[in-house]
């Protein structure tokens, strides 16, 4: 079975902190994604990557950056966390056109 793991299920940070969300997949997928999920807004794509060291902006990249130094790992970085970044963050990897999701990280920014 494909496994996508995220470093934390719950995270509480303060405004202005730098936040790292880590995602690791074990199936050698080239494609990896970061989404955020908010009530009433569904899933919104933040960034995605098709290969190591490659990244592309999704629909809402502002306030975020990403890093893909190794194929299995895709990190989401909040350079300076703000309260409007309180959300559920979902990482996913993909072998083709469908996604395998991690369990999600619920981030609260105080």
């Amino acid at each position, binding site marked *: 079975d494909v496994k996508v793991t995220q470093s934390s299920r719950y995270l509480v940070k303060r405004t202005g902190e730098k936040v790292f969300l880590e995602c690791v997949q074990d199936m050698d997928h080239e494609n990896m*994604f970061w989404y955020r999920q908010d009530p009433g807004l569904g899933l919104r794509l933040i960034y995605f990557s098709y290969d190591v060291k490659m990244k592309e902006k999704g629909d809402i990249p502002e306030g975020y950056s990403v890093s893909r130094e190794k194929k299995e790992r895709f990190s989401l970085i909040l350079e300076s966390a703000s309260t409007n970044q309180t959300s559920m963050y979902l990482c996913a990897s993909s072998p083709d*056109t469908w*996604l395998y999701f991690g369990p999600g990280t619920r981030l609260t920014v105080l």
Partner: protein
Amino acid sequence: AQSVTQLDSQVPVFEEAPVELRCNYSSSVSVYLFWYVQYPNQGLQLLLKYLSGSTLVKGINGFEAEFNKSQTSFHLRKPSVHISDTAEYFCAYYSSASKIIFGSGTRLSIRP
């Protein structure tokens, strides 16, 4: 513009009753369509997918969906639901730009 529309934000049904969750898409090119399920406090899980071939697609947990090209729909059905089917269901569409577009979700609640 390519989009996915889930017509119902919430669907309440009684246990053992049939259910249909509706999904319509808009696209002028070949489509790949998916349904995902999200149980409380979990990530999304692929329920079923349509890539090509038979328009009736069977998935996990007794769910099935039918691709209807003329109506641009991909409705999800189950003949008899169980309490454990309580979850949020997302229809999704693969676009030629290699991004997957999600619908806004349908929350299925099962009443005993």
